[in-house]
């Protein structure tokens, strides 16, 4: 039956009913109503009552804090102040939809003016406005669907705000019309182990309630599957469950026993327990920004040490790679006094910001060294945005001054990849950050949505740089890790091993799939797949040819 193609995220498969995320409503036009005010008012009031009732019902079902939020939203839907404004506008000739839109918009503005901490309430009120306007027009409610049973979510793309309202435990699979492998939707799917197909243009035609098979490994969505296709999908689901039960523990290795350390990416100490449970062999990327982001002044060494001890303590005897502060004009910190930059991605960020503020780095390294001395973990530190061996040497010197022997460099800037040999004579290891490396190789700002399709770690240009780094690592006899989104893509993980990666670090939820995929392939297979990928002309070709070579 119709087969819609896109970019698969992960190896999962799902069968379920489609629920689409409604498109945002255009602003109702300010044209006079052709109906009697009495009729318009009846439409507006019944819409307000219906939305309030629906929100209360959902609040009761949800319970807890969600109930408070939904109850407050129900009160907003029926608010007497809104009712008064709607009545006045309708009596002056407005349509119900326009009157409702204008009344809520006025309060959105009033609340927004009350300050930043009202932002969440403004978002709640805006959601109510959309619901009431949709009810007036008798069209589907924009935003996150709630069909009452688990579903396959079909959306144009997901914004972070959408996912706040989304109960992911009810999402069987995610299909987006737009977006690439590093879009917010794809990152979310990977983090939660939800099968996903992104950039699936044909999915725009899927309607609510249709049965689909989402096959992330093949990057396809089958709409209206035949009984035999459904049976095949159910079999694949069952096989996956069995395979997972077998391969979900133990160190990572290819089928012929070449070890590939499977590590976790962590963003805060709270993530450590989940990573241990998922069988992480250590931490390949511990981001330290969480300590700094909300701080008006740099956190003290004592404050930092406490947080570092928590993570290091959870990984006794194991490897923990801590990335020192990665700040810049794109992630501004109050105490670093960073000025405006027209292009923060190419600005004073990462190690460059630390070279301008060495006291911040020294405090952080001191805290890390004392946390390491108090625990059994094997601490390594690495610097972000290293351009060349001179940058690396500066960082290594600072680490040594604090007694930290294992200091490494992230490979994110193409110049670092191209001179990896020189860099590796200075540092103990390198770790490739594929997201930034793709950004800089393809000259495509990660924050510009329209360029998302270029943000693809499968791009042969990116893979060739990784190949150079892999070769330099093997010559120097030093570890080469990968800690970007690429490492969490099971098939790409095999390619990376073929290009010379000795460890892969990823969001813990992706560990099981990557472990299982590696265990299926020999090292020779990985070398072969790597060559297939680097000799392809484009990212899409690389992905398609490797998929074909493995199926």
């Amino acid at each position, binding site marked *: 039956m119709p087969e819609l193609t896109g970019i698969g995220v992960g190896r999962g498969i799902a069968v379920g009913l489609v629920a689409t995320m409604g498109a945002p409503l255009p602003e109702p036009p300010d044209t006079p109503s052709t109906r009697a005010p009495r009729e318009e008012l009846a439409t507006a009031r019944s819409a307000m009552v219906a939305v309030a009732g629906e929100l209360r019902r959902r609040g009761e079902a949800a319970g807890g804090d969600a109930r*408070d939020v939904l109850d407050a939203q129900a009160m907003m839907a029926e608010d007497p102040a809104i009712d008064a404004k709607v009545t006045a506008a309708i009596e002056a000739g407005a349509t119900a939809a326009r009157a409702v839109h204008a009344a809520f918009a006025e309060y959105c503005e009033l609340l927004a003016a009350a300050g930043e901490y009202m932002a969440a309430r403004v978002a709640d009120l805006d959601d109510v406005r959309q619901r009431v306007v949709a009810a007036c027009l008798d069209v589907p409610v924009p935003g996150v669907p709630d069909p009452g049973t688990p579903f396959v979510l079909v959306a144009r793309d997901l914004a972070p705000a959408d996912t706040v309202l989304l109960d992911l435990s009810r999402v069987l699979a995610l299909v987006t019309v737009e977006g690439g492998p590093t879009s917010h939707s794809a990152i979310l799917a990977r983090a939660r182990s939800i099968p996903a197909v992104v950039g699936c243009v044909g999915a725009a035609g899927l309607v609510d309630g249709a049965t689909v098979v989402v096959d992330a490994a093949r990057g396809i969505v089958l709409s209206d599957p035949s009984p035999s296709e459904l049976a095949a999908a159910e079999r694949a689901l069952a096989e996956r469950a069995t395979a997972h039960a077998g391969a979900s523990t133990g160190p990572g290795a290819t089928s012929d026993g070449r070890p590939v350390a499977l590590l976790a990416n962590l963003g805060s100490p709270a993530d450590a327990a989940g990573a241990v449970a998922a069988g992480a062999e250590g931490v390949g990327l511990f981001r330290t920004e969480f300590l700094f982001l909300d701080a008006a002044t740099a956190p003290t060494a004592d404050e930092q040490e406490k947080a570092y001890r928590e993570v290091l303590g959870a990984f006794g005897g194991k490897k923990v790679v801590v990335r020192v502060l990665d700040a810049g004009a794109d992630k501004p910190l109050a105490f670093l006094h960073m000025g405006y930059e027209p292009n923060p991605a190419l600005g004073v960020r990462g190690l460059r910001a630390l070279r301008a503020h060495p006291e911040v780095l020294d405090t952080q390294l001191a805290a890390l060294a004392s946390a390491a001395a108090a625990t059994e973990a094997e601490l390594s530190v690495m610097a972000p945005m290293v351009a060349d061996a001179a940058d690396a040497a500066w960082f290594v010197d600072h680490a040594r001054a604090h007694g930290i022997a294992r200091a490494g460099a992230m490979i994110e800037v193409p110049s670092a990849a191209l001179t990896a040999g020189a860099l590796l004579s200075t540092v103990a290891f390198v770790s490739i950050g594929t997201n930034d490396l793709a950004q800089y190789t393809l000259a495509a700002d990660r924050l510009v949505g329209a360029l998302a399709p270029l943000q693809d770690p499968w791009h042969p240009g990116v893979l060739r740089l990784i190949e150079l780094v892999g070769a330099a690592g093997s010559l120097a006899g030093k570890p080469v890790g990968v800690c970007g989104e690429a490492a969490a893509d099971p098939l790409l993980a095999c390619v990376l091993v073929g290009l010379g990666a000795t460890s892969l670090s990823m969001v813990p939820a992706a560990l099981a799939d990557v472990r299982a995929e590696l265990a299926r392939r020999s090292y020779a297979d990985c070398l072969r797949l790597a060559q297939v990928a680097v000799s392809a002309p484009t990212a899409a070709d690389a992905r398609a040819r490797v998929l074909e070579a493995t199926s």
Partner: protein
Amino acid sequence: MPERRVTVASRVGLHARPAALFVRAAGRAGVAVTIAKIGAAPTDARSLLAVMALDVRHGDEVVLAAEGAGAGAALDELAGLLATDLDAAPSGAGDA
């Protein structure tokens, strides 16, 4: 017209749950109650949006006013509510 001056005790001010609890109680009062910041125009205490737009913070003083039969008792109850830290109250408190 009967009035009550009261200092808002909730730590989050008259926002979020405390605002909803107060507005719900005002809706049940049986008389039309208004709320105002000192020296400012009064607004409908039964409108959550109007109350939130007042942006009343912890420690701010407000004036409640109502007219008609039972106004005094209604104001006493609502003033008592505002003088309590509603955010600390167990979930469901103040609900019908």
